[in-house]
C-alpha cells in the first residue's frame, strides 16, 4: 500500500537484470544481483532438502519393524550417511545465510548489493560444483560413503566406499561458505546507508554478521581436516591412522572444532529471522535490542569453546571432559537471553498471529526442547549414558529441524510476498502449522525415550522392545511428508494463482517493507537515510500504511 507513487512505474529485479538480457537462464546463472543469487540458492537448496528428506523417509521405512524391511545393512549405512551429509552440508549450513542473507541483508542496511557481487556469484557456482561432486560420489566406483557424516578415522580410512570424493565435495562446499562469510562481513562494515549505525541495524543483520564470522574462522578447520584425510587415504601419509602412530582422537578434535561452531552457523540466522518476525506481528519494538544483538556475538564466540562435548566418551582426558562440560553450560545462556526477550516482546503488543508468527511459536517450543535436551547432553553423568543413542538423534533433529528447519519455513512465509510479489493461501498455511507441529513431535519425541532406554544410533536393526516407539516414529514421518508437501504446494501454487502482494503486507518497518514487492534492481531509487530505530512502528504512519 505504501509507495503508491513509485510502484506503478517501477521495474522489478525480475524485469531488469545485471546481464545483457534480463530473461532466460543465462540472466540467472550469471547474474551478480544479490536477489537473483538468493533465489538461485533457494531453488538449489530446496531441491537438496527434498532429496535428503526422501532419504529420511526411506530410513524410517526400514526402521518400521525389526529386521530387514526394504534395504540391507550396507544400504542403510549409506543412506543415513548421505542423509546427514546432504542435510548438513547442502541444506542447513548454507540454507538461511545464502538464501535470505543474500536477498535481505543488503536491503536491510540500505545497500544496493553486497560488497563483492561477483564473488557472490562465484560462491553459488562453487556451491553447485560441490553439490555436483557430492552426487558424482554416489555413482563413482566404491559406491556411496558409509561412514556417517562425521567421517571418523580409522573407519573412514579403511572403508572401501568412495569416501574421498564425498569429503572432497564437503571441502568445496566449505569454500562457498567461506566466501559468503567474507562478503557479508565486508558488506556490513562498508555498505551501510547513511545513518545506519551498528545499533540501528535489524537483528537479522546482526545474527547473519555473527554467523559470517563463524563461517570465516571455523570453516578452514574442516577444510584442512578433510584435506589431511584425503592425503591419508591417497598417499598413505601417516597423520591420524593409529597403524602409523597417529591419534584417531585428534581427528575428532579437529572435526568438532569446526562442526560445533557450525551448529551455530545453522541456528544463528534462524534466530535473526525470529527477531524480525516477532516485532512485525506484535507491532511493537523488540524487547532488549542490544541484549539480543550482543548475545549473537556471544554465541558465536563461546561456540568455539565447547566442541569436545561431542567426545565425552571418546577417551579424552577426564580433565578435558570436565572443562568442556562446564563451558557447554555457559553457551546455553545467550540462547536463553534470546528466548526470554522474544517472549517479552509479545508483552503489550498488538499480536496478529499470521502464519509466519505461528511458525515462530512452533519454533520457540521445539527449539526450547532441543536446546534444553542439549543441557542433558552437556552434563557429564547423563551424556556418558546418552551419547550416540537416539537421544542425541532426537536432540539434533529438534534443534536443526525444529529450530532452523521451522524458521526456514517461517522465513519463506514471511518474505515470500516480498520475494515473489504473490500471496499464498493463509488459511491453508494455518492448518499446515498445526499438522507440522503434530507430525514433528510424533516423529521425534519417541526417539528421546528410545535413547534413554539405550537404543544406539546408526543401527540398522534393533531389539524388539523398541518396536512400538519406532513404529510411531515412522508414522510421524508420513505426517511430516504431508505437511512438507502442503507447504511446497501452497507456495508454488501461489506463484500462479496467488493474489498480487502489497509492498508491505504485514505492516513491517524494516527497509525491505519500504520498497516495492518484488524489489527493483538496485533496491532503492535513492540512498535511504536512516533516522529511525529498526523496529520503530511509529514509522507506519509516515509510510502511509493502512492495515487491511
Amino acid at each position, binding site marked *: 500500500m505504501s509507495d503508491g507513487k513509485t510502484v506503478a512505474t517501477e521495474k522489478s529485479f525480475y524485469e531488469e537484470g545485471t546481464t545483457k538480457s534480463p530473461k532466460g537462464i543465462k540472466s540467472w546463472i550469471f547474474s551478480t544481483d544479490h536477489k537473483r543469487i538468493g533465489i538461485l540458492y533457494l531453488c538449489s537448496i530446496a531441491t537438496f532438502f527434498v532429496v535428503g528428506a526422501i532419504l529420511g523417509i526411506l530410513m524410517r521405512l526400514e526402521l518400521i519393524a525389526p529386521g530387514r524391511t526394504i534395504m540391507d*545393512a*550396507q544400504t542403510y*549405512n549409506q543412506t543415513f550417511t548421505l542423509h546427514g551429509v546432504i542435510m548438513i552440508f547442502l541444506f542447513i549450513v548454507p540454507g538461511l545465510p545464502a538464501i535470505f542473507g543474500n536477498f535481505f541483508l543488503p536491503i536491510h542496511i540500505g545497500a544496493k548489493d553486497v560488497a563483492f557481487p561477483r564473488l557472490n556469484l562465484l560462491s553459488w557456482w562453487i556451491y553447485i560444483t560441490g553439490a555436483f561432486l557430492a552426487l558424482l560420489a554416489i555413482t563413482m*566406483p566404491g559406491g556411496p560413503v558409509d*561412514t*556417517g557424516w562425521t567421517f*571418523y578415522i*580409522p*573407519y573412514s580410512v*579403511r572403508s572401501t566406499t568412495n569416501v574421498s570424493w564425498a569429503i572432497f565435495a564437503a571441502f568445496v562446499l566449505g569454500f562457498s561458505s567461506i566466501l559468503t562469510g567474507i562478503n557479508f562481513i565486508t558488506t556490513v562494515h562498508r555498505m551501510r546507508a547513511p545513518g545506519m549505525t551498528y545499533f540501528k541495524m535489524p537483528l537479522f543483520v546482526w545474527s547473519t554478521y555473527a554467523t559470517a564470522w563463524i563461517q570465516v574462522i571455523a570453516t578452514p578447520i574442516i577444510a584442512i581436516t578433510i584435506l589431511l584425510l584425503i592425503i591419508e587415504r591417497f598417499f598413505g601419509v601417516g597423520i591420524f591412522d593409529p*597403524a602409523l602412530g597417529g*591419534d*584417531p*582422537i585428534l581427528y575428532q578434535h579437529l572435526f568438532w572444532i569446526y562442526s560445533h561452531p557450525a551448529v551455530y552457523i545453522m541456528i544463528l540466522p534462524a534466530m535473526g529471522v525470529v527477531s524480525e518476525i516477532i516485532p512485525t506481528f506484535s507491532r*511493537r*519494538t523488540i*524487547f*532488549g*535490542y*542490544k541484549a539480543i544483538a550482543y548475545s549473537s556475538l556471544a554465541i558465536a564466540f563461546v561456540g568455539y569453546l565447547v566442541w569436545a562435548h561431542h567426545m565425552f*566418551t*571418546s*577417551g579424552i582426558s577426564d580433565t578435558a*571432559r570436565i572443562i568442556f562440560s562446564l563451558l557447554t*553450560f555457559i553457551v*546455553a*545462556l545467550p540462547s536463553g*537471553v534470546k528466548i*526470554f*526477550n522474544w*517472549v*517479552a516482546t*509479545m*508483552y*503489550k*503488543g498488538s*499480536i*496478529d*498471529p499470521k502464519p509466519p508468527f505461528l511458525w515462530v*511459536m512452533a519454533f*520457540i*517450543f521445539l527449539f*526450547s*526442547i532441543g536446546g534444553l535436551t542439549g*543441557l542433558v547432553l*552437556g*552434563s*557429564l*553423568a*547423563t*551424556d*556418558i*549414558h546418552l*551419547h*550416540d543413542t537416539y537421544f542425541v538423534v532426537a536432540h539434533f533433529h529438534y534443534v536443526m529441524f525444529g529450530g532452523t528447519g521451522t524458521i526456514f519455513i517461517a522465513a519463506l512465509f514471511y518474505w515470500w510476498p516480498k520475494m515473489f510479489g504473490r500471496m499464498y493461501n493463509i488459511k491453508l498455511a494455518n492448518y499446515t502449522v498445526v499438522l507440522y507441529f503434530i507430525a514433528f513431535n510424533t516423529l521425534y519425541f519417541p526417539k528421546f525415550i528410545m535413547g*534413554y532406554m539405550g537404543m*544406539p544410533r546408526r*543401527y*540398522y536393526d534393533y531389539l524388539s522392545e523398541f518396536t512400538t516407539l519406532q513404529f510411531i516414529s515412522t508414522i510421524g514421518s508420513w505426517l511430516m511428508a504431508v505437511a512438507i508437501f502442503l507447504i511446497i504446494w501452497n507456495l508454488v501454487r501461489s506463484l500462479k494463482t496467488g493474489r498480487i502482494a502489497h509492498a508491505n503486507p504485514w505492516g513491517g518497518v524494516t527497509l525491505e517493507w519500504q520498497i516495492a514487492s518484488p524489489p527493483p534492481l538496485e533496491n532503492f531509487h535513492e540512498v535511504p537515510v536512516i533516522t529511525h530505530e529498526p523496529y520503530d*512502528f511509529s514509522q507506519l504512519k509516515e509510510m502511509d500504511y493502512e492495515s487491511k
Partner: protein
Amino acid sequence: MFSGPSENTGTVDMVMLYIVGVSVLLLVGITITMIYFVFKYNRKKGHKPVDIHGNVWLEILWIAIPTILVLSMFYYGYNGFVVMRTIPENAMEIKVTARMWEWKFDYENGKSSDTLYVPVGQPINLVMESVDVNHSLFIPAFRIKEDVIAGIKTHLGFTADEAGTYIITCAEYCGLKHSMMYTAVKALPLTEFNNWLEGKTEKQIIDESVSLLAEKLNVGLLHDKGCITCHSLDGSIKQAPSFLAINGRKTVILEGGEERTITVDDNYLRKSIMDPYSEIVKGYPAIMPEQKRMLNEDEVNQIIGILKALN
C-alpha cells in the same frame, strides 16, 4: 529412590530427573506465557501496542537465574561422573578387545570369553583396546559407555550390584555389522563366578567342538583373529564364503569390476587375507578388514595351513 543393577544407574537417573525436571518447568513456563500473551494482546482486541525497549533488571535476572541453574546442573553431572570414573584399588581388571564385530574379554588368570562374566558387588575395571576401528562398549543398564580405540587404551569402571544378564552393545559406528555387535555381561554371585573362572574357557570349548571337524588343528587361531565371525566352518553361509572345503574350490571373483573364475590355492588365500579388496568373491560385500598390519608372516602361514586342512 532410584536404584538399579548398579549404583551408577541410580546416580545417572537422579541427575537426569533433575535436569529434565528444571527443563520441563522452564519449557512449560515459556510456552504458557507465550500463548497467554497471544490471546491477551491479540490485535482483534484492539489494544494499543506499547513500546517497551527493555529492562536492565530483567536482563540481569534472566541471565543470573539460568546461570545458577546450569551451574547446579553441571555440578550434579560432574559429581556423578567423578564417582563413575574413580576406580577402587581392589578393582578386578579385565582386558577387553574389540574388533569388527565382536568382543573378547581376557581375565587375569588367562581365561578368555566373548561374554563378560563378573562377580556381583566386585568393582570391575575394563581396560579396553581395539584392533581395527573405533567401537564403544555400552551397557545401558549400568548407564555407562566408553569408546574402544586402536592404539590407545581406555578404561571403564563399574560394579554390578544385582545378579543378572545385561546387554552390552556397540555404540560407536564401526561399519556393516555395527548394529549386531551385541554381547552380554553376566553378573554372577561370587562362588558361581569363581566356578566359571576355573572352568573351561569358551575357547577351549570351541576348540573341542571344532576338533571334531578338523582333528587337532589350531582352529582357535581363526577365532582369535576374528575370521569365524564372518566365515563359517561348517559350510553355512554367513557374510563371507565358508571355510569348509575352501582349498581347490572354483570361485567367481570380481577384479576391478570384471568377473573371473579362479581356483583357490595358496597364493589366492594369501592375497585374500592380506589385500582382500583386490579380488572380491562375487555375491559378497567388500567388508573384510585388511590383515596386512594385523598378522605376522607366521600367523598367515599357519592360517593358510589350517584352511587347506579343512577339507
